[in-house]
């Protein structure tokens, strides 16, 4: 079982699995030396990282604001302490006082034990940036986790889950390994389901040249989230869009953001833009995926290796704008159940989707109850950054990491009669919350937001 000297760890990718994503594992005896070499390279490039290394005064403000710490009470899960796992090494090798006084100033020699510590703790952080949001110095500890995971990846240490996602992306262009015939079959099934349930004819065009919109769904929608996929099809049909889904990039997620911001993230960006180019699309509209929308909205321009000539928007932005203009006829009575909204962290703290999600929610439901806190102050679902590990130890940890969210949902009272809806418009959140609402017995069903919008549409 994945544990190292009392620390929980995700199952790691095998050397063969690492090679499939073009990473060559470093032999153990060389890892410490290479770690310092890579850390040196990265610190010279990223000022955000140096700020985090140099400025923290250990005020402790981040501690009670981190759901990982609240759920585990492990001191190394306090964001400032988690960053310290790299900071002690940074101090030892890259500061004068650390080189001279070593342990006296909290510096530590690099070792395999330290690297294993990184692997345990940087994969318990969900990169939700709530600590960054409250830090009086503006330190974004998420940037430290990014870099911790990057160093680990270059050393050849990446969770099996993340590496498998990278491998599937290389192979077919989505995380769940859907080849085109599987995509088409599922979409035809969705058309039948929409006809059965809503009596509306909806087609899901695939790879249609000269589409005004290419829609990038999360591939998890094809396995687990039928109403999100149906919802997108119904929305685009309702507004009369000339749209399609590209079979070459049927994936809103970009796990490169989460474990390898160099080759993997950049490769995925270029795969997307190549698809937009080949289909001669005019606009790219994103589906429900939190980290993926951050990776798209905030990173595409700098990783594109070309001028980006396609406007990039989120399907929530599109829907909210049409609601504000009064162009969607909606009946909120179609969603009579009590609903609460789990804000995907990347939507609210990285992409400004806060208001638009609420514009939709208020227009399509009758009993919407906010969690406390919510919006930019939300707490993560506990699965953020793809830490959806399912071996018994890590699964138990996921239950702990979702404790804060469970308390919040329960406090809204939406699940009191067992018919509540927990709207969580992101595939990682959904995958985390489907089992967690059962573990915590919350009395709610998990749905996306576009799911609720589609149910409220009034067809002519």
């Amino acid at each position, binding site marked *: 079982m994945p544990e190292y000297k009392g620390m929980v760890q995700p199952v790691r990718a095998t050397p063969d699995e690492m090679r499939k994503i073009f990473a060559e594992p470093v032999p153990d005896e060389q890892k410490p030396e290479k770690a310092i070499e890579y850390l040196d390279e990265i610190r010279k490039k990223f000022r955000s990282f140096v700020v985090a290394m140099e400025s923290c005064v250990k005020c402790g403000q981040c501690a009670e604001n981190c759901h990982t710490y609240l759920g585990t009470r492990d001191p190394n899960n306090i964001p400032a302490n988690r960053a310290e796992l790299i900071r002690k090494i940074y101090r030892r090798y890259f500061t004068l006082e650390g080189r001279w006084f070593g342990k006296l100033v909290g510096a530590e020699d690099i070792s395999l034990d330290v690297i294993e510590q990184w692997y345990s703790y940087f994969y318990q952080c969900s990169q939700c940036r709530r600590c960054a949001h409250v830090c009086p110095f503006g330190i974004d500890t998420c940037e430290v986790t990014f870099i911790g995971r990057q160093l680990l990846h270059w050393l050849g240490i990446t969770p099996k889950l993340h590496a498998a*996602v990278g*491998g599937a992306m290389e192979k077919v262009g989505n995380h769940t390994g859907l080849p085109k015939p599987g995509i088409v079959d599922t979409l035809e099934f969705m058309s039948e389901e929409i006809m059965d349930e809503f009596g509306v004819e909806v087609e899901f065009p695939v790879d249609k040249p000269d589409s005004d919109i290419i829609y990038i769904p999360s591939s998890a929608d094809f396995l687990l989230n039928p109403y999100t996929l149906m919802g997108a099809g119904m929305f685009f049909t309702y507004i009369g869009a000339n749209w399609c889904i590209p079979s070459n990039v049927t994936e809103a997620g970009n796990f490169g953001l989460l474990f390898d911001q160099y080759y993997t993230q950049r490769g995925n960006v270029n795969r997307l833009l190549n698809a937009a180019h080949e289909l001669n699309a005019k606009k790219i509209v994103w589906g429900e995926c939190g980290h993926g929308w951050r990776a798209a909205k905030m990173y595409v321009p700098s990783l594109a290796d070309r001028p980006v000539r396609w406007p990039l928007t989120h399907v929530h932005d599109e829907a909210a704008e049409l609601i504000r203009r009064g162009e969607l006829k909606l009946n909120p009575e179609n969603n009579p159940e009590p609903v609460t909204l789990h804000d995907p962290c990347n939507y609210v703290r990285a992409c400004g989707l806060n208001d638009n999600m609420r514009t939709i929610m208020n227009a399509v439901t009758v009993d919407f109850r906010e969690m406390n806190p919510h919006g930019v102050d939300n707490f993560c679902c506990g699965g953020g950054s793809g830490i959806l590990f399912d071996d018994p130890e890590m699964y138990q940890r996921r239950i702990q990491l979702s404790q804060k969210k469970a308390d919040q949902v329960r406090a809204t009272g939406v699940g009191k009669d067992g018919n509540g809806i927990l709207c969580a418009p992101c595939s990682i959140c959904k995958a985390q919350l489907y089992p967690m609402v059962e573990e915590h017995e919350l009395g709610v069903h998990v749905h996306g937001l576009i799911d609720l919008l589609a149910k409220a549409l009034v067809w002519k």
Partner: protein
Amino acid sequence: MAFMEFGGKQVELDEDGFIVNPEEWNDDVAIYFAESEGIKELTDDHWKVIRYLRDYYKQFQVAPMVRKMCKQTGYSLKQIYELFPSGPAKGACKLAGLPKPTGCV
């Protein structure tokens, strides 16, 4: 990685106990996995789901949408969980010899 012998043939399993090459699957594999999943006996209901998943995978190289599996086999999700306590992906797909699902699932 581990190898198990089924009917005189070596079958490779990954760390999670999923089959590595779905082509190597045979009925004995399902029976072996059933034991490790705490399923006492594979009934006709189990085999119906397993055969459906095998056929779908053979045609599309991927597991079907859970909703489609329920609709086409006639079992509700609740019944699927009763048949396969680890659920559709980690229980039913595993017994049917499909590779472990990846991504946000």
